[in-house]
């Protein structure tokens, strides 16, 4: 079992046992058990400037077993916790949907819809400060793919991200169960589109830059983000994000860096605050004379929104947002193909890396 998994495994079991113990004590004292659950409402999501990601504020809600309206919810939360405990102990995983169906047979009754059971899982995640994957529960979707000089072990299986076919290794939702064995790469380059991902593999960018190439498939899945976080923390690799030159590309990068608001309760497990954005910027569009599209109304609105977002409150972002609004144009990563397919690997990325590597102490050329 990988170290990170072990750590989470223990923390999960301890948290679940602690939850049980607290309730038992209350019951023995004939005190109605009350659960303090951190509030996930928008007025309790705050940007942590020091850590550079969203976290939950100090507000919490009370679930009391003495309340007629809440006692069922408390019972359901405990059923969910017991279900999670079994999963963690047996090393199995279940999807959120599977859990929703499993609840059909629970004593505390089925859920009305999956939204209800998902909310209870979020309650547990927020209460324990553990992500659902640590509780044996996974989202439906896989993460994206990684290609490069990294060997891993998942159970009895050895994995080589260089020898998993042309598409690379698909990051599973259970990425925390995967142990990193050996990594020759010195950095991670994550790209927004799978088109660019395959371009970099074909151009052997992994070799040229000593990099793990990660395809994000648009907005990064939790598994992908968790992989990036681990690569950054456990392997000490700097993470570079290459996205489209539009507000949505900016934000795909930013969610990886600073986490999303609706996952504020778990961002400490997912956010990679040191990741650097090396995607297409408004300056790039001008400097490289890239083929562009006109900004749509939606893009303009989104850019204005981003300008006010605390995560973008840096000189770099404020400049690039303003500039994109000024030029009124946007460009995709793949626009560099204007100068030939290999241009992005031969010219653009080396320039970009040179730009950022000077600013970070992590990784060396």
């Amino acid at each position: 079992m990988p170290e990170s998994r072990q750590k989470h495994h223990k923390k999960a079991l301890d948290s679940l046992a602690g939850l049980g113990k607290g309730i038992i004590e209350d019951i023995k004292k004939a005190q109605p058990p009350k659960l303090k659950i951190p509030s996930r409402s928008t007025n309790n999501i705050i940007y942590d400037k020091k850590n550079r990601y969203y976290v939950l504020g100090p507000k919490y809600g009370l679930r009391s077993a003495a309340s007629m309206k809440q006692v069922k919810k408390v019972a359901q939360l405990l059923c969910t916790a017991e279900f999670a405990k079994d999963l963690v102990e047996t090393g199995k995983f279940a999807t959120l949907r599977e859990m929703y169906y499993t609840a059909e047979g629970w004593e505390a009754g089925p859920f009305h819809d999956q939204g209800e059971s998902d909310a209870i899982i979020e309650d547990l995640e927020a209460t324990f400060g553990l992500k659902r994957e640590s509780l044996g529960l996974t989202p439906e979707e896989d993460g994206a793919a990684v290609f490069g000089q990294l060997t891993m072990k998942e159970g009895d299986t050895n994995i080589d991200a260089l020898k998993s076919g042309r598409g690379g290794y698909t990051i599973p939702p259970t990425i925390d169960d995967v142990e990193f064995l050996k990594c020759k790469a010195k950095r991670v380059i994550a790209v927004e589109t799978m088109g660019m991902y395959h371009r970099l593999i074909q151009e052997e960018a992994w070799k040229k830059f000593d990099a793990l190439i990660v395809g994000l498939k648009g907005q990064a899945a939790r598994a992908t983000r968790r992989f990036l976080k681990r690569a950054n923390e456990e392997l000490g690799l700097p993470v570079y994000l290459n996205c489209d030159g539009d507000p949505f590309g900016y934000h795909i990068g930013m969610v990886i860096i600073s986490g999303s608001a609706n996952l504020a309760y778990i961002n400490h497990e997912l956010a990679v605050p040191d990741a650097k954005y090396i995607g297409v910027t408004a300056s790039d569009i001008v400097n490289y004379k890239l083929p562009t599209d006109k900004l749509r109304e939606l893009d303009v609105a989104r850019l204005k929104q981003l300008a006010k977002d605390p995560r973008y409150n840096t000189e770099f972002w404020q400049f690039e947002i303003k500039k994109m609004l000024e030029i009124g144009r946007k460009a995709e990563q793949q626009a560099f193909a204007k100068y030939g397919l290999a241009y992005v690997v031969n010219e653009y990325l080396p320039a970009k890396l040179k730009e950022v590597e000077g600013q970070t102490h992590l990784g060396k050329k």
Partner: protein
Amino acid sequence: MKTMADELFGEFREHSVSEFFRRNAAMLGYTGKIRSLTTIVHEGVTNSIDACEASGIMPKISVTIKRVNDEPEHFKIVMEDNATGIPEQYIPDVFGKMLAGTKLHQAMQQRGQQGIGISGCVMFGQITSGKPTTVVTSTGSGEAVRAEVMIDLDKNQGKIFNKEKFKEKWRGTRVEVEAKEVAYQRSRYGPFNYLRMTAIANPHVHLTFAEPDGTLTVFENATEKIPDRPKPMPLHPWGIMSDDLLILAKRTKARSVSGLLSTELSRVSKAKADEVCRLANVPATKRPAELSWEDAEKIVTAFKQVKLLAPPTSGLRPIGAADLENGMKQVLNPEFVKTITRPPKVYRGGLPFIVEVGIAYGGNAGKAPEGKSNGDEIEEAGMDLIRFANRAPLVFDQGGCAITDAARKIDWRRYGVDVSAAPLTLFVNISSAYVPYTSAGKQSIADEPEIINETRTAIMEAARELRLFLYRRIRAKERAERAGVFEQFLPIIARKAASLAGVSEPDVKSLLKKVSGGIEHA
């Protein structure tokens, strides 16, 4: 030689009261096919109960309605009681003469008042079917009389046909009326509802009813107590009208108007009688027989100008809260009953009346009897208002009645009642020797402010109890639900918590007791 006048006056004849009512059957309640049938039942049953009470007999009454020849609007109505029976010689007058009877001149609080009821039935049967009414009666002498009665409408006299006598140990009276142009329905206006209401207001009466389709319903008596006999009471001047005075004048033994007033009326001394005569400008010494309509009118007006003691309330005979409660329980089988008999009050400055109110909730309360309305009024679910005057059901003319008015003036939501949905029967009975009916049909009470206010007060008093009951019921339901919820989920919480902590399951009993005991937590 005949003069012109002779010729002209040859056509002159006295129009009898029966002739008058034959032309104005609606005034007696014979209007509409359903109502006519209910009126026949009403007249028969009312007479029977009055007769039993007058002689201290527990009334046992049966009513049967049968179709005749399978014709849709042709019925035979058979009504039988166990009262004293009618002496043979009175049969023609009782059944064949209008305004004859034992009630009008006595000012007793009885159901019937005017002495036209049962002869009205005979008349209605006669003019719609052409058939006489068959009467079988026995005074318990071991001999019964059967006779067919018709009314000579010109002469206001009963005519008897096919009279026969036979040996019979039974006592009572059986009346068989055959009528056409009537319809049977189990609606609010039909005989079934009428009898059901009668049973509620007269818990001492045992009622059996056979419907045309053969359905037999028995309304058992809910008490063995026979109401006190009504005491004859002289009329009080505040309640009389000119024709009352004229009727009294015809019957009195007094030799002067002054004597008539002081002997035949309540609370009138010789001095008051003389004072009234002076005020009315009617000679106190005038012979009663010579009293004219104008004189009578002047006297009635003059009475309003003198001070009089209010009529005594001793003659009022309410049902009594306890008996009413029995009646409502027996017929409606409700979850909650509250009955109230208010102390006597007066209206028009002195006419005594008593209001009784009953509220029944749940069980069969509130639901109108099966069947559709006759189309005059939409049958509603929810609260059912049943009105009575001297225990006699008021079925028709609900809209213009003081009782309806009083019930409508109440904000039922304040008592937790949704009038449109609650299974609630509201019973109101006005007892008085002087019930101010709005018309001769005696189906609604005039809007005397004192009666409306008193009725409203009584309803609110009963409704307060209902509110308490409903509140307690909601609380009890909530408590039970609450306890149920905790009983279901607390053991699960304990079991799962124990499983998580890896310890044995704790006992939840004391916690359960604490949280479901009604103490609110968070």
